[in-house]
């Protein structure tokens, strides 16, 4: 039976290595300066790149973070500092359930909220969709990190006459900073590769766009469009885009892991 268990591990790890190996093999050959600096060329012309999509993704993610992170952390503080009761349990349960809502459904909601009102697709709508996805994840990880902070530290602050809000912000949250950032980055990594909610919110764009109320290109959308197209040149660029996307995401997660290892929480 031990053999069977080991076999399952091998079977599970095989696709992982296959995906990464193939991604590196296809992607590295396709990334060049043009890919990182130019916008897409019309069909048939070789060259061109995804520069606008890379920037577009960053803009959408920045909007999502600005909208989602404060609410997420606030909800996390509520759960750990004010929510050790039935109301907290409700919020906890709802955010776990929200975590499982399909991302495409979130896209519909953002479409109704922003696109229908503005009458056109926009980076803002994409950001709203991703922000909705970030909030529950951040809330739960923030809560867990704040709960790791020993009660004695809070009591020490109270003992010095520090008010409760000050204690929460400058003592509890401060102590758990690296853990909270981990949670935020994990949520960020999770939404960074999302495509489904952007299909009918950010929509995609072949050109540079700096306005947040206009259709905006995103890396994941561009990969999707290129992957299902019939052109070899576009397939090549889809692989390059996927590699860039993975590097951005894995880079963020790895940076966070290192930060946590050297962070304050390790000693707490």
């Amino acid at each position, binding site marked *: 039976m*031990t053999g069977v268990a080991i076999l399952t591990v091998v079977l*599970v790890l095989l696709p992982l290595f296959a995906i990464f190996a193939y991604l590196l093999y296809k992607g590295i050959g396709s990334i060049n300066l043009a890919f990182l600096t130019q916008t897409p060329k019309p069909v048939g012309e070789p060259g061109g790149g995804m520069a606008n999509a890379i920037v577009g993704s960053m803009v959408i993610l920045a909007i999502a973070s600005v909208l989602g992170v404060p609410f997420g952390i*606030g909800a996390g503080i509520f759960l750990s500092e004010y929510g050790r009761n039935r109301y907290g349990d409700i*919020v906890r349960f709802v955010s776990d359930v929200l975590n*499982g809502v399909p991302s495409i*459904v979130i896209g519909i909601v953002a479409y109704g909220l922003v696109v229908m009102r503005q009458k056109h697709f926009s980076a803002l709508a994409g950001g709203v969709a991703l922000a909705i996805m970030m909030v529950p994840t951040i809330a739960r990880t923030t809560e867990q990190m704040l709960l790791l902070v020993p009660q004695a530290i809070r009591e020490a602050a*109270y003992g010095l006459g520090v008010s*409760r809000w000050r204690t929460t912000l400058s003592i509890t949250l401060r102590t758990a900073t690296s853990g909270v950032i981990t949670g935020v980055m994990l949520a960020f990594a999770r939404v960074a590769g999302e495509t489904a909610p952007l299909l009918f919110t950010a929509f995609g764009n072949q050109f540079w766009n700096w306005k947040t109320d206009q259709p905006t290109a995103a890396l994941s959308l561009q990969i999707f469009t290129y992957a299902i197209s019939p052109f070899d040149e576009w397939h090549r660029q889809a692989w390059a885009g996927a590699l860039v*996307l993975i590097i951005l995401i894995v880079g963020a997660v790895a940076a966070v892991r290192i930060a946590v290892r050297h962070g304050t929480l390790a000693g707490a």
Partner: protein
Amino acid sequence: MSNQALPRPRFSAPEPERGPQAARKVEARTAPLLQGKVSEGPDAFFGWVMRLCGLAVVALLGLIVYQLIVGSELSWHAFGWKFFWQSDWNPVEDQYGALPFVFGTIVSSLLALVIAVPLSLGVAVFTTEMCPINLRGILSFTTELLAAIPSVVYGLWAIFVLVPLLREYVQPFLATTLGWTGLFSGPPYGIGMLAAGVILAIMIIPIISSIAREVLTVVPQHQREAVLALGATRWEMIRMGVLRNARAGIVGAIILGLGRALGETMAVTMVIGNRPEIAKSLFAPGYTMASVLANEFTEATGDLYLSALIEIGLALFFVTIVVNALARLLVWSVTRGQPARSLA
């Protein structure tokens, strides 16, 4: 008590309470003392702002439900429950029936579970029970990495690697050996229900195995030792001492994986073939609820068309909510230290 003439004086200190409930009680008793006046201006303000953030999470759920219900009203009035039993999807004649999509979602997700469950349980058992400690970290990191790959990259890989592999080797093999069942017949396109099931399985294995691992670690060590002491082999110990105890949690992990598979969009859309028909063969192309949204939402011209699509979104939402809620309750029942058997 009442039949005693005098209350007996109690000298012994009350037994200290234990457990999370007791901790909450102590906290409730000491908190006001520690914080002085709780209702001071800034404190009260801060408290309410944080409560508002908590409320916002609940409000988000309400907002999602509201948007979906309002958006799908038109289609609901036009078709009612029939919407889910009709298999005719014809935007030209404004006739909408979601049955092929419901069928595709259920079949592809179940297929994914059939492939993923044994594999992920194997991985979970291996990492908690057999694997040397230093390998454990690496394994959990790699499975985490699998979960971090975006769905669209899975789809890309599936189109260019998995589908040709299925077309050239797996499907001909299945057709010759199991073709008589009718499940594996027809032309081997590569693209189709089978490809969707396989890529979904690859995507949900990290979820199921990491939660199953979490559940297995909670099983107390003395359970294992007790079973071993009765003369069980290691495998019997795992089966009787560990898996049986964690049953409810493992079922929860599987259902959580199912929830993810039901809502998965991009990778499935890229390989399932996107044809709204109900076929017995797994080689045939299909369509899922999530992929029809991905493909047709931006092209929906009429109000009824859009409304029908939103209704599919609403159905998808409710199914995943129910599935996830069930799974959470099962997982919580184990990891919060209640006896697992009461629920299973």
